[in-house]
């Protein structure tokens, strides 16, 4: 029997599964999908239900790859383990003081609670200097007493975080040994172990997130493991990390913080994989959902990674993660008119409850989804049939009262204006994301998924001047696909923080070799899955006096002082168009990524060719009036499953499929590529509006 693999992603609302039966014996690869409601109390139930719904027994699965929001939710909802902190005398408040900020530039208010409250943050006598020399020796008896005190308080998880431990971890290690003797479980996080990088607040907060979610993740994985085992699944499963790679479930809890924000990462991973298979290397992934939109940059087929993300205000996670930016605009974003009489969209959202008006769940404010429905972009019959409590007239009446009348527009024009504003705002935000990283967005294709992404992508691409839109075969299953295609991946960061001309390159070589060995050992757990391995080194660098860092890949050939200096100078010039030969370069961090590539997945299997119609005309399921720019047009509606391969669909057109609706704007052309993606070519920006002379 052919190999069966399941990618399962637990999202906020749905648990998605993509099951791939590999090709074999002349039978092409086949795919099955399932979507079940997420079960927040114990996500394992939803996972098992999804497997059941796909019509397969766990025993028949050869591999499960899993993305979970357990840790993200635990942190955001502050439903975390009770953590105790042992730290350097004089510094117990680092996690609470932060970096002296406020939540927003304007507004002298805000609240912040660290994950470890003050009464559970205890100090011990010890101090390292910046160069790793001991300034004050560790008082071991005191450390033992403090740990016992935290145990008495009922702490489940222990965090040990000392100043300058990245430079010399001896004190943290020694206290870790003492703790191992007396702590009732294995939940002990040493600050430097997860992240050996300077900056005490970021390192400490990252470690506190790890300590706070470790027991919760482990309990969840144990439940899932046992349910899978009860179903006859005989081996370990892989868990998605925020870096877009997977790791064996038995190893993942030790660095539990790495799973935070893995949800959006798997979507980006799938985007990169799919785009690469479609021959596109530079892509902006665009996942528009109900309340927010996630955007990430993919260059040369690789998602950009950042070690400076923040899960919420005051909670930075300085571990390498796929750099996903969230924009507060989605289908639920509300249109309103400010006191000056100007039309605005968002940031307020109707969310899932009460949701858009047309969902009939009690929503009473005009949303982007409602505008799409009124304009025929979304099938009004399909939507309104969900609940007879709301009619099109109800939605129109609210648009009339809240937007059209005050603006002096027709309802159609007001709804259309709302979409234009929403797109302009999203375009602005995406432009800033790409420009901030030194890229011109016009060099990228747009990879659209999520419930609303494919509906807006065409107009958005035109607004931003992007030449092409790519819509995958299963836009609603992108995150689960990301799990399925993810490789095994381990990332390591160690601070060096010395001017390049003072770096000892033998020491650096040893450090990189150690990082590599750790990564290879972790991947070895799953060596059966790995077809090929890759080790990449990179370096975070800056000029003396700067605070921003630039990450550069290792130079080709031998790593020497000269080759690294040249590599940095080139990268700096490429990014900032400045050369600064008179200023010394600093090597801030040395990084290693160890990747174990898995067997490639045949994406063509995602699209089922059996339903394809013989001609384009035969793929039309209906026609309906759709409002584009400033007029209604009778528009053909195609069934995606029935689109013939290689067919060109000229806009205006609507393409519907189970999990999304695709809008093909007038003047653009959509084509089905040979692996089931829809590729929309957007002609170079014609001015959409000329001056109203």
């Amino acid at each position: 029997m052919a190999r069966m693999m399941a990618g399962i992603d637990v999202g906020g609302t749905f648990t998605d599964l993509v099951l791939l039966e590999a090709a074999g014996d002349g039978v092409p690869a086949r795919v099955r999908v399932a979507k079940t409601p997420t079960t927040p109390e114990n996500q394992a139930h939803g996972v098992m239900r999804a497997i059941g719904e796909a019509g397969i027994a766990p025993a028949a699965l050869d591999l499960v790859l899993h993305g979970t929001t357990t840790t993200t939710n635990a942190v955001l909802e502050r439903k975390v383990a009770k953590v105790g902190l042992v730290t350097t005398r004089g510094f117990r408040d680092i996690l609470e003081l932060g970096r002296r900020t406020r939540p927003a530039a304007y507004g002298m208010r805000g609240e912040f609670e660290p994950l470890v409250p003050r009464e559970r943050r205890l100090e011990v006598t010890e101090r390292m200097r910046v160069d790793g020399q001991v300034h004050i020796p560790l008082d071991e008896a005191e450390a033992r007493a403090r740990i016992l005190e935290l145990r008495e308080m009922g702490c489940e998880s222990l965090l040990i975080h000392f100043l300058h431990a990245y430079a010399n971890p001896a004190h943290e290690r020694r206290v870790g040994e003492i703790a191992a003797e007396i702590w009732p479980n294995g939940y002990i996080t040493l600050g430097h172990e997860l992240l050996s990088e300077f900056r005490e607040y970021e390192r400490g907060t990252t470690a506190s997130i790890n300590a706070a979610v470790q027991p919760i993740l482990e309990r969840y994985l144990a439940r899932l493991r046992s349910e899978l085992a009860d179903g006859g699944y005989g081996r370990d499963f892989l868990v998605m990390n925020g870096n877009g790679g997977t790791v064996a479930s038995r190893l993942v809890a030790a660095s539990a913080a790495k799973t935070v924000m893995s949800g959006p990462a798997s979507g980006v991973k799938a985007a990169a994989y799919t785009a690469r298979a479609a021959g596109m290397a530079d892509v902006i992934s665009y996942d528009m959902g109900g309340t927010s939109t996630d955007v990430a940059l993919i260059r040369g087929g690789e998602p950009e990674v950042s070690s400076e993300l923040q899960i919420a205000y005051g909670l930075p996670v300085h571990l390498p993660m796929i750099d996903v930016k969230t924009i507060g605009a989605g289908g639920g974003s509300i249109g309103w008119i400010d006191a000056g009489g100007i039309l605005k969209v968002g940031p307020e959202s109707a969310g899932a409850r009460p949701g858009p008006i047309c969902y009939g769940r009690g929503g009473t404010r005009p949303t982007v989804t409602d505008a799409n429905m009124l304009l025929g972009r979304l099938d009004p019959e399909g939507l309104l049939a969900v609940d007879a409590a709301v009619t099109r007239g109800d939605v129109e009446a609210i648009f009339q009262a809240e937007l059209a009348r005050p603006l002096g527009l027709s309802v159609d024009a007001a709804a259309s204006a709302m979409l234009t504003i929403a797109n302009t705002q999203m375009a602005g935000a995406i432009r800033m994301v790409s420009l901030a990283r030194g890229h011109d967005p016009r060099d990228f294709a747009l990879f659209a998924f999520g419930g609303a992404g494919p509906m807006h992508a065409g107009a958005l691409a035109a607004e931003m001047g992007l030449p092409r839109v790519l819509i995958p075969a299963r836009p609603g299953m992108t995150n689960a696909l990301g799990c399925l295609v993810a490789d095994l991946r381990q990332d390591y960061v160690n601070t060096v923080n010395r001017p390049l001309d003072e770096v000892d390159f033998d020491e650096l070589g040893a450090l990189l070799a150690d990082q590599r060995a750790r990564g290879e050992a972790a991947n070895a757990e799953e060596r059966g899955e790995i077809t090929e391995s890759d080790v990449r080194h990179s370096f975070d660098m800056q000029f003396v006096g700067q605070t921003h860092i630039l990450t550069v890949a290792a130079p080709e050939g031998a790593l020497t002082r000269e080759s690294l200096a040249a590599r940095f100078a080139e990268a700096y010039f490429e990014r900032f168009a400045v050369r600064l030969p008179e200023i010394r370069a600093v090597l801030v961090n040395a990084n290693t990524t160890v990747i174990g590539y898995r067997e490639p997945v045949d994406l063509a299997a995602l699209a089922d060719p059996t339903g394809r119609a013989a001609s384009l005309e035969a793929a039309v399921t209906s026609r309906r009036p759709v409002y584009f720019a400033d007029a209604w047009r009778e528009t053909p509606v195609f069934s995606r499953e029935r689109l013939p391969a290689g067919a060109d669909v000229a806009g205006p057109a609507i393409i519907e499929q189970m999990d999304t609706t695709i809008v093909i704007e007038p003047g653009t052309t959509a084509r089905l590529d040979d692996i089931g993606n829809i590729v929309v070519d957007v002609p170079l920006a014609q001015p959409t509006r000329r001056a109203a002379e």
Partner: protein
Amino acid sequence: MTTLDPLTLAVVQNGLQQVCNEMDLAFSRSAFSPVIAEADDRSDGIYHRDSGELIAQGEGGLPVFVGTMQHSTMTIIERIAQGVTAPPEDGDIYIVNDPYLGGTHLMDVRFAMPFYFRGEMFCWLSNTGHWPDTGGAVPGGFSARATEVEQEGLRLPPVKLFKRGEMDAEILAIIQSNIRIADQRIGDIKAQAAALHVGARRLGELLERHGTETVDEAIREMRRRSDKLMRSYIAEIPDGVYESEAIVDSDGVVDAPLVIALTLTVAGDELDFDFSRSSPPCRGPMNSVIATTYSSVYLAIKHIFPDVPISAGVFEPLKIRRPEGTFLDARYPRPVSGCAAEVSQRIAEAVFAALVQAIPDVVTAAPAGTSGNFALGGHDPAKARSYVMYQLTGGGYGGNAQHDGLTNGCSTIGISKAQPVEVLEQYYPVLFRKYALREGSGGAGRRRGGFGLEYEVEILRGEARASFIMDHGRVGPQGALGGGEGARNRIRVIRGDEDYVPPHLSKDQDIEVGPGDRVEVLTPGGGGYGPAFERSPDAVRRDVQRGYYTAEAAERLFAVRLAGDDLAVDEAATRALRADPAAAAS
């Protein structure tokens, strides 16, 4: 009434905002000075070609620059009209840092570029960046003892640094001969000009798309609408006359408090700010130039109503009487280095204190309100080089109707992050012995103030001099609606067995220190909101459990008695204490 359709109006508004945001981004990304690159101490905007009024400003700009650049641009236009400054040509960029010509302090250097579209000037693009040094008596420009502006650094009237696209090498040479670390400034000058060029390119695209007439009309309409928007907010404020005061400890030279006295009149949809009862101009550098005084009022209003866009229309219903004859309208040659970082925050505090009486659900009690500037300049023998370390700190924010004040927030006028201890120890020969939450510093109240910071730093090697420009040493950040004052700023220099406290409490210069000596700074807590006796005893208990206050302070300040090891609330005793406030306070 406009003939513009509402969609075009909203799209143009978004577009102009985007132009400014991209200028902000371009400036920070390519600037070399960490003050700009990391602390975002800069701002970019679009200004009207004839009036100089603000059309749009980047959302990432430093709050203190809300409104200053329009005064700067207005001054340039005026001087061109008078024939004092050469008229603009395509490709020119004017440079100016004169505080009296629409500025803040000398370190905030403004660039103004006339923007031409199809051969005609359409508007001004301007920006401000804080340069690390512009010459003067002390590195960095913040001399606590300056008595005239010449001691504070090089002062440039508006002159063309770029002429028809070419940098003027002679002007550059004059600048470079008068400032410290001159070699790095060329990178910042290029970044500052490049940001304007980014804006020009984007604005050009917007004009291509919509046409100059449409954009012009949209700008007029946006001005009208933002005026209307601001007025709608003001109309909600109960009419009345509200008075407040805020105290600056001293000017750094004469040891006497400076008073900002505000009479705020709310009448219909306008606010009238009268600061005329404030102290006269001072000898030391705590004078404020008029543009900074105006801008401080704007930024306070923006903090209260964060949703209002920053544009000239918003300023229209804010009538600020020019406080002639006071230290808030400094004229040449009064020294002004303290105005942007400190006096501005006291002006904002006066605005908060007046408006919290009128709209108590919206405004907070006073925040810490000082930038906490501690500069340590010395020589590190181990690295054989001189250094200047700046430590800027925050403090507690004021309690408010919704919650307690934030702990260790950024200054009212800033948005930057503090430097980590692990970074400071890397660059400078110092060791922090403590970096902690300052216990007990939050002003008592139904919603208490946030807590300040307490740090103690030891000099490890070499000789050095310590200088301080802070505030709130004499009186703490004020409480609101019966809430208590936040703890005052404290500075102590521990030299051998001697404790030195600056005579002006929060300001001093060139205190000599050597190896083993320590500097201790305690930053202010935020003001409390509402009577402390109304604070929930459970919240007080939690605060004591966390060590924010002692049990003794809980009783004295909040009239809550906690008993036993588990600090249970003694309900009967607490009731009795709260029934007789005099007994509790004794």
